[in-house]
């Protein structure tokens, strides 16, 4: 044996014993060899897959084969192969060989993906056979209803454009204008009737403002370093953290259907739904920021004899305000996206418009909505990112006493006035009516009572967990498809790889634009296309999720590629390597860990989103929840939400843990 590869084996273990142990209990042989983690992983995977195979076979008939009088799942054969691999692995390991992990992983993946494909009802054939019919819709997408010719043949904004953005109508002048002597009594003056898009923008803005203000005090109660100084704080801290996590696990749209019961359909319900979810999300981010402040300045100011308030003002606030603002801006971006879909369940905004137009088959109107949404979201995304950068990187700051040019002061005043006007307009546009909060519908408390006393009868649990399973697999397959498609595109969207040639630049900008466009539209808005294309069900939802995953993962991947260390690339090029060789040897090793991390992150996001694609016909728990609500079966709806909270929390935790280990 070669001296270099010889391992310092301690006590030699018997390979036969190891193999025999693994034959009886998967992983037992590996355990006997002292490889505890490996043993636990093997046992967990085999057991988990066994349960899964049995479950989907019994419940959904997945993998069913008939052999004479015996009906069973053929997936058992694959599991048997995995079991055999585990025996071979134990034997090989005992003799100091490293068996091929890839075989075991591959077998497990085949089982998982086969099941996933089946339960999400994926059917590529339908995607192609229906293509002819769907051409009309796709054609409509590139001919959005934004402009129309009037009688004289001139292009004008269409009726639909007016519904979406706003119309100018002539109204009798208000008393104020008359009193000011600007117009005569009874004269008609032009006024803007805002459209659905403006309403959506207002909803996103109001929700961001409300949630930022409300999350602020809560975040202090959820910050460990603050609460450990307050009597009884440890308990408050735990409770706050728990509440924030549960609230965050429930998607905005699910809050939406609950809130509709409270305040009725409309923009206000949308604002509330967004606000609740975003309080929890911001509360968590804020409190983590508070926990991470530098204690040095606090200590220094205490040492000067400053009081508590002074210390907070001069040592704590300056540290937390910039990150808080940055998080709020990020949340504004997210809220704007959610505002485009919250109307699907809560009414109000462009989401409601989309549901209505699709119902009427108005695909050109729907297309117009998509294009406008993309425009607004891309803009918001850009502005939010730029502002965040400016806040966090920070300009050279000037003090109050420092000479400040008048122009600057004037600009600040103008900005403040504009913001105020914006706020007032948004308030009225999003139909904020705080009184409604205190006058819930008469059935409201009844509904809440039903909702929290969840139905745990086996029949309901079975139905709910089946749909939950579909949801999780829907997210998995969508992530996989999206990520696979994203890989080639991410190379095209990475600036450092494409060089400065005109072709390279063109490819870069085209790919970036495509990714940004696709990413700006929420999965729920895509569902309509796929429902028409492949029919209602999880497959339609999965395809929508795949598109948004493709766009987001593509963006993250390309950024990961742009951030690689150029050193190795240079070295391989210097050594005369080809472009392909440099990808293989300099780029791939650097990007695989972040890629895997992003894929897991995306899966985590997708599980959340796939709980709601059902609201638009995308299958999974969303559909079930919608049905239960429609049939006023609130106990059962409660079960669904409880299950979502559990699954999302587990996914969140697991995904964070795995990603932590990857980097």
């Amino acid at each position, binding site marked *: 044996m070669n001296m270099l590869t010889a391992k310092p084996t301690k006590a030699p273990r018997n390979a036969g014993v190891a193999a025999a142990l693994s034959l009886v209990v998967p992983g037992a042989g590996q355990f006997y060899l002292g490889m505890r983690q490996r043993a636990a992983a093997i046992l967990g995977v085999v057991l988990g897959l066994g349960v899964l195979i049995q479950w989907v076979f019994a419940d959904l008939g997945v993998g069913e084969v008939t052999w004479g009088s015996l009906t069973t799942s053929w997936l058992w054969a694959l599991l048997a192969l995995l079991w055999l691999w585990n025996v071979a692995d134990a034997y090989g390991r005992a003799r100091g060989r490293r068996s091929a992990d890839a075989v075991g992983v591959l077998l497990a993946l085949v089982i998982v993906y086969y099941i996933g494909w089946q339960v999400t009802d994926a059917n590529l054939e339908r995607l192609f056979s229906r293509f002819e019919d769907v051409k009309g819709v796709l054609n409509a997408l590139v001919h959005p209803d934004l402009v129309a010719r009037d009688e004289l043949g001139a292009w004008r904004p269409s009726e639909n454009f007016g519904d979406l953005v706003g119309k100018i109508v002539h109204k009798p002048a208000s008393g104020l204008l008359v009193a000011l002597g600007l117009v005569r009594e009874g004269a008609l003056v032009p006024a803007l009737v805002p459209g659905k898009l403006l309403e959506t923008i207002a909803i996103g803005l109001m929700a961001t403002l409300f949630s930022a203000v409300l999350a602020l005090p809560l975040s202090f109660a959820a910050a460990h370093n603050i609460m450990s100084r307050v009597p009884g704080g440890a308990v408050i801290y735990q409770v706050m953290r728990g509440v924030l996590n549960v609230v965050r696990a429930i998607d905005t749209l699910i809050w939406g259907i609950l809130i509709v019961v409270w305040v009725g359909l409309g923009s206000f319900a949308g604002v509330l739904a967004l606000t609740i979810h975003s309080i929890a999300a911001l509360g968590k981010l804020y409190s983590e920021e508070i926990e991470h402040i530098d204690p*040095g300045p606090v200590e220094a100011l205490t*040492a000067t*004899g400053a*009081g508590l308030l002074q210390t907070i003002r*001069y040592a704590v606030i*300056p*540290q937390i305000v910039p990150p808080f603002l940055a998080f709020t801006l990020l949340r504004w971006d997210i809220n704007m996206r959610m505002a485009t879909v919250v109307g699907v369940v809560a009414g109000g905004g462009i989401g409601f418009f989309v549901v209505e137009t699709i119902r009427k088959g108005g695909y050109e109107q729907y297309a117009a909505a998509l294009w406008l949404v993309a425009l607004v979201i891309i803009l918001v995304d850009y502005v939010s990112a730029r502002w965040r950068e400016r806040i966090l990187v920070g300009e*050279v*700051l000037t*003090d109050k006493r420092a000479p400040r040019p008048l122009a600057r002061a004037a600009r600040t005043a103008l900005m403040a006035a504009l913001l105020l006007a914006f706020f007032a307009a948004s308030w009225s546009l999003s139909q904020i009516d705080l009184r409604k909060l205190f006058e819930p519908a008469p059935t409201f408390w009844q509904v809440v009572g039903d909702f929290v006393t969840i139905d745990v009868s086996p029949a309901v649990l079975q139905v709910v967990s089946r749909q939950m399973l579909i949801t999780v697999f829907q997210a998995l397959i969508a992530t996989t498809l999206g990520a696979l498609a994203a890989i080639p595109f991410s190379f095209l969207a990475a600036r450092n790889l494409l060089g400065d040639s005109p072709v390279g630049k063109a490819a870069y900008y085209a790919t970036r634009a495509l990714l940004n466009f696709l990413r700006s539209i929420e999965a729920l808005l895509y569902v309509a296309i796929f429902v028409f294309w492949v029919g209602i069900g999880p497959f339609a939802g999965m395809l929508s999720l795949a598109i948004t995953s493709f766009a987001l993962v593509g963006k993250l991947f390309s950024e990961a590629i742009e951030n690689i260390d150029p050193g190795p690339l240079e070295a391989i090029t210097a050594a005369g390597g080809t472009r392909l060789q440099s990808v293989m040897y300099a780029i791939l090793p650097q990007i695989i860990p972040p890629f895997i991390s992003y894929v897991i992150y995306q899966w985590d996001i997708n599980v959340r989103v796939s709980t709601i694609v059902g609201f638009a016909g995308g299958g999974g728990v969303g559909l079930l929840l919608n049905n239960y609500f429609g049939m006023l079966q609130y106990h059962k709806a409660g079960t669904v939400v409880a299950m979502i909270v559990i699954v999302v929390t587990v996914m969140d935790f697991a995904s964070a843990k795995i990603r932590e280990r990857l980097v």
Partner: protein
Amino acid sequence: MLKVENLTKVYPNGTVALRDVSFQVPDGEFLAVIGLSGSGKSTLLRCINRIIEPTSGRIILDGVDLTALPPSEMRKQRRQIGMVFQQFNLVKRSSVLTNVLAGRLGYLPSYMSLANHFPAADHETALKTLARLGLEDKAHVRADSLSGGQQQRVGIARALMQDPKLILADEPVASLDPVLSHSIMKHLEACNKEDGITILCSLHFLDLVHRYATSAIGLKGGQLVFQGLPQEIDDAQFKEIFGQEAERVTIL
């Protein structure tokens, strides 16, 4: 005159960081506190202004027993004790001027200072102090845009704003390179010689002790193992304080 009598500090987790430490520092002294990392230097300095609450013993500053004061009175006493930190402890995103002015907070009623408004006289003093430390042109930039040595000078300026009788400097040069170390130590020396401020300064390097201190104490495992003149610390003493394996490190 600062008197430390039988000072003991036991942390909640049971670590005894200081064990029955007593010494005196006459006014105008530049006292070096030396000892290995973990010997209790930071704990000692922080017990003097009660940023850390002593477990037992007394701290007497000009006849006032600081350990007996209620919190509000202690706050007032802290105004005459400046502190300088190893990590500078500046508010990074605030301007240099605001950081320096923060040294006046103990003199101002809360309501007045909450809006970042300081009396004009304080502004003047702050700018003068910055000028004295060679930072006149940096008043309006963010603290984190300064180099380490400059940040520490801001830290000293903040302490000077308190108009202190005593400055506690906890390894003020441990995060700086040797050239900057001397520049910072010279500023502290100036505070000591020109303003007559008593200085307690923990230091790692014997050469800095020899060059700047007028007296020294040594801590080992929380106990006082040396008290005397800096020149008295020879290599044998040094080994006693820093342990057998310690090498004398010479800088510049």
